[in-house]
């Protein structure tokens, strides 16, 4: 019942997978910040206006977590993912303000089978999250471990 559509073999260089669209509500900005990042610009409109962010804005970790969900809903839930060892870089380029609608894409920049873990490949993505004005608010690169559909073919495709 896993519902997987995408395996390692489907992640070819240059292919872009859309992130699910997501509106960011003031209440959820405050809720996340209250638990993890209680700084004034993430807790109230007034606090945000008094900061260089210009208004009630999401914690960068909230934006990263929302990106994760947008990626999950967009394509990861239908992929044979085994998780990720990390993030090469992530840039918070613009504030994410209450009411913003985020969208974006994950583009494959590299894919290779793992000799150390037969049956699993490592796919490196460029992730871009943008707001309703088409401005990139966050971008970063990271590798994700993804199961090979056919382990015999995957092993022949190239190894680390």
């Amino acid at each position, binding site marked *: 019942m896993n519902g997987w559509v995408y395996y390692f073999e489907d992640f070819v260089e240059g292919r872009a997978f859309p992130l699910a669209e997501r509106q960011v509500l003031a209440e959820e900005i405050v809720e*996340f910040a209250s*638990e*993890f*990042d*209680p*700084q004034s*610009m993430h807790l109230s409109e007034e606090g945000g206006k008094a*900061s*260089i*962010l210009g208004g009630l804005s999401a*914690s*960068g*970790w*909230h934006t*990263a*977590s*929302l990106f*994760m*969900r947008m990626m*999950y809903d967009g394509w*990861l*839930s239908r992929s044979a*993912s*085994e*998780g*990720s*060892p*990390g*993030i*090469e*870089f*992530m*840039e*918070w380029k613009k*504030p994410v303000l209450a009411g913003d609608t985020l969208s974006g894409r994950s583009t494959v920049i590299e894919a290779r089978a793992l000799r150390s*873990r037969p049956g*699993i490949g490592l796919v490196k993505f460029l992730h871009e999250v943008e707001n309703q004005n088409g401005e990139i608010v966050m971008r*970063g690169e990271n590798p994700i*471990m993804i199961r090979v559909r056919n382990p015999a073919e995957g092993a022949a495709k190239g190894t680390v």
Partner: protein
Amino acid sequence: MRLIELSSPGTRIETGTLLFTAEDIIRFAKKFDPQPFHTDPVAAKDYVFGALCASGWHTCAGWMKMFLAYWETEVARLESQGVTPPKLGPSPGFKKLQWLKPVYAGDSITYSVTLTDSRPLASRPGTFINMMINDGVNQRGETVMRYEGTVLEFE
């Protein structure tokens, strides 16, 4: 006072310890990262991690939570001594984030911050960028997470 005057580069400061309960792990993951190994203790057995473990973003958010708790105490301490605390601002990003070990239900992660460098921002007079190494270590002494963070500071 500048951050670099408060904490000399290379000094590792422990900010606090956060317990990751199964409930916390599942609650965070259902909102942001509902992969089976983060939401379902039974299904998790069929994956590489082998058991329910926290979303990497949850582990990162935990770093922020403990840093701010530490910072609030530090600001109060400095103010009580009549010292103006460093004015920290937002962060432009991070790099080399490694999730080195899974954070399993019941693990306690002790977070730390190590300032590595501080320099003025050419594009914004009166603003500095501080570079630091942030990490989290579990109760077995294993580093579970590490990244190179940044934070802006205003004069």
